[in-house]
């Protein structure tokens, strides 16, 4: 144990290894598996999402130490504990602020935020549009099980109206929100939907999201057999509709919205919208450059004190 007097941990100081081709073998999904048994129930969709993250990281061959997975609170938010990367199981609804803080402070780290529907569009909803408008280069995977699972089955913001839950014994009277439509409204620069029952497709979606430059969102349908019944998987599987929009359609929010409205009872899976925009990291770098230009050069600390001279 050593006290490090160096106040600023530079990337090299922090043990950063070059990721360039060193002749080492590529990573395999199990390299990302952490030795802790998930708390999830048998048949939970979250297992599929977890597997897709292992596979996507392996296929992208990202060093485990260069990844940070940040979550809020809920069944799905337990996920960081099962991945051999840096992780943070934080506060209910607050994955996005912590994930953005990490990404902006350490842009070279691959940052994923994960959590559930209650975490993301109920208690933590206020952060979603702002992460989107900043276009921080990170990925947000919302594992939607249409229920509060960890607290044992209350109605969630995505539970269909009319469903009976422990907190709506005489059926839910709230209309559900659709995370994809919200993401479109928030101007998220990459939006995809995937289903835990199709691991191959979900892996592709997570991978594309991580590869996207900017704030990417994956609406991961992750059924909860415990509180929503064993048939939920079947119901979703029967409704899925794989889409592969053309490049032109992908760039159109109107087309994406229309597609979501088009088939009642169908669930579109695939990349639904994608746009190229500058990231917050790029913009903050420009701010630094403008600031330096206005001063001529980076100031010494003593000079900053000197600015107070009348």
């Amino acid at each position, binding site marked *: 144990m050593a006290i490090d007097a160096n106040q600023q941990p530079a990337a090299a100081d922090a043990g950063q290894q070059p990721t360039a081709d060193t002749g080492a073998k590529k990573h395999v999904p199990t390299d990302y598996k952490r030795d802790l048994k998930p708390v999830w129930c048998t048949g939970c969709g979250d297992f599929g999402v977890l597997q897709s993250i292992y596979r996507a990281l392996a296929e992208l061959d990202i060093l485990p130490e260069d990844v940070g997975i940040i979550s809020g609170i809920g069944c799905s938010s337990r996920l960081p504990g099962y991945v051999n990367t840096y992780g943070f199981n934080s506060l209910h609804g607050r994955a996005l602020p912590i994930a953005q803080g*990490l990404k902006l402070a350490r842009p070279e780290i691959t940052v994923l935020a994960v959590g559930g529907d209650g975490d993301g569009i109920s208690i933590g909803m206020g952060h979603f549009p702002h992460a989107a408008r900043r276009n921080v280069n990170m990925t947000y995977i919302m594992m939607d099980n249409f229920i509060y699972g960890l607290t044992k089955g209350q109605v969630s913001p995505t539970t269909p109206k009319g469903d009976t839950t422990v907190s709506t014994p005489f059926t839910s009277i709230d209309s559900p929100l659709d995370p994809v439509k919200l993401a479109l409204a928030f101007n998220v620069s990459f939006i995809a939907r995937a289903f835990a029952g199709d691991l191959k497709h979900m892996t592709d979606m997570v991978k594309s999201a991580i590869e996207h430059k900017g704030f990417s969102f994956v609406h991961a349908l992750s059924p909860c057999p415990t509180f929503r019944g064993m048939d939920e998987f079947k119901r979703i599987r029967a409704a899925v509709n794989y889409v592969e929009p053309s490049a032109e359609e992908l760039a159109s929010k109107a087309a994406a919205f229309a597609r979501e409205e088009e088939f009642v009872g169908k669930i579109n899976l695939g990349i639904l919208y994608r746009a190229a925009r500058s990231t917050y990291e790029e913009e903050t770098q420009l701010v630094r450059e403008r600031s330096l230009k206005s001063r001529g050069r980076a*100031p010494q600390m003593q000079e900053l004190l000197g600015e107070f001279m009348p």
Partner: protein
Amino acid sequence: MASKDIIIGIVGSGGDGVITAGEFIVSAVSSEGLYSFLLKSYGAQIRGGESSCRVRISQNPVESQGDELDALVVLSWSDYLKFEHEIDLHATTVIVHDEEDPIPDDHVARWADHPTYRIPFKRLAKEEMQTVLTKNIIMLGSLIELFGMPERGIQHAIDKKFGKKSPGVVAKNLEALACGKRWVAENIKKTDDCFLEYTPSEPKLVMEGNAALALGATVAGCRFYAGYPITPASEIMHWMAQHLPAVGGTVVQAEDEISAAGMVIGASFGGIKAMCATSGPGFTLKAEMLGLASMAEVPMVIVDVQRGGPSTGIPTKSEQTDLMQAVYGSHGDSPRVVIAPTDVEDCFDTAVYAFDIAEEFQIPVVLLSDQFIGQRKETVRPFPVDRRQVYGRVKPSEAELVGYKRYRLDTPTGISPMAVPGMAGGQYPASGIEHNEVGDPTSRINLHNAMTEKRYRKYKYIVEKYSFVRRYGDDDASVGILAWGSTKGVVKEAVARLQAEGYKVGAMIPQLLHPFPMEAFDQFLAGKKRLVVAELSYRGQFLQFIRSRCTITAPIHHVARPGGKPFTVREITEALREVL
């Protein structure tokens, strides 16, 4: 009789430029090497409305805003009436006002003995300068002649403020300054003796507490700042936005207070020193994040620039009523450190300490400032910014990264080496859920016991290393005064005043509030027969807090009143006299 220490108050409506005038005086006297202390007070209006300032000027260092005004300059009596309860006059305070706006009828008799000068500020501005906007500069010019304000310094301040705009603007303002000075010289026969006498010396700095605090954080290595606008803390964000990018840092205006705190925790988790600043209501919103930083042992600095409360309270005025939430706010047993700056310069130093403690002990640190320190301007002697050693975070060694235990229990200080993303072998899940040594969630009570004890173990070492207190007066006095934060200035001055009268008094102002520096407090208490405790809290949060830490047998004279108006030297002196 000329004076080496005078206090001038200026009152007007928002558009009158009285705050600008006060700032010019502070700049002027500081560039002449004198000391000054500027307090501003506003109404709640966004633009316009009433505004006032009081500036104390002295040949010698000043500790506080002082007592009564020596001179009162009023540009508008209707605005003055809104501040009447904040402005104390002595028997011969000089009164200066615009001739177009006569003294209110009910004040005429009361103020019959005050030397009074009527000056046509508005008329001169319109007739001589062709614009009423120069009214405050004409007023400044009159103060040069009336009270000996340093002319050269004011000219320098005008040049510095308007020089970038255009030479014409500077010339126009200098002309207005000369106009005010000339009118007084030609038309007023001075009947009072309020006149500044001074010897110029080395120029000094003019700092506000909020900016000094932001600079201290930057010097300590803070490179990430997230904030949300809130009075009276926003100037910290403004300074950071202006300066942090140039040294490679990042500033984010977050969508809310919670997000700002979350971003700070995220950045710090990434190994970068990070801070957020707010005021009371914002601090309450961050309370859950404070618990997270305690539990996940993530270094974090949260500034609370206190204002009148509860709820929206009085955002533009000071109070010392966030102590309880700083020490106890949040859920569970959540260790945190609370330190309080005592003046503007101390904002710089305590910001450095805050980062040292946060980083070394992996604990959230609350820097408890207030509006009185944060928004006032003070003359500060230049100092080397690297005068304090900056400490960093304990990182795992190569050996410790094999089978790495982020929250290992067997450390004497409770500090477990903290890996940061990018460090191979250091991967771990941080969590707000109770965890074992490697970070896995647990609900086992033996681990909860051990981890809670580990998190609190740090306190002993923090007190040993950072037991900062300020002591003034006589160590062996039988009468003592205990206060904290911004009350330091008036306490120090009151003690000096009583010592000059031959009394023995001792004062203690702890900067480290929590964990409480018990040993230093015991030393202070030794031999004390009577105590005064002074705080701007009606409920008496400070004394309640102290009493929760120890038993004080000496009788206590408790001066506990709501904030809004800071304590005066006289108030503290009188309180001490009662027990002397």
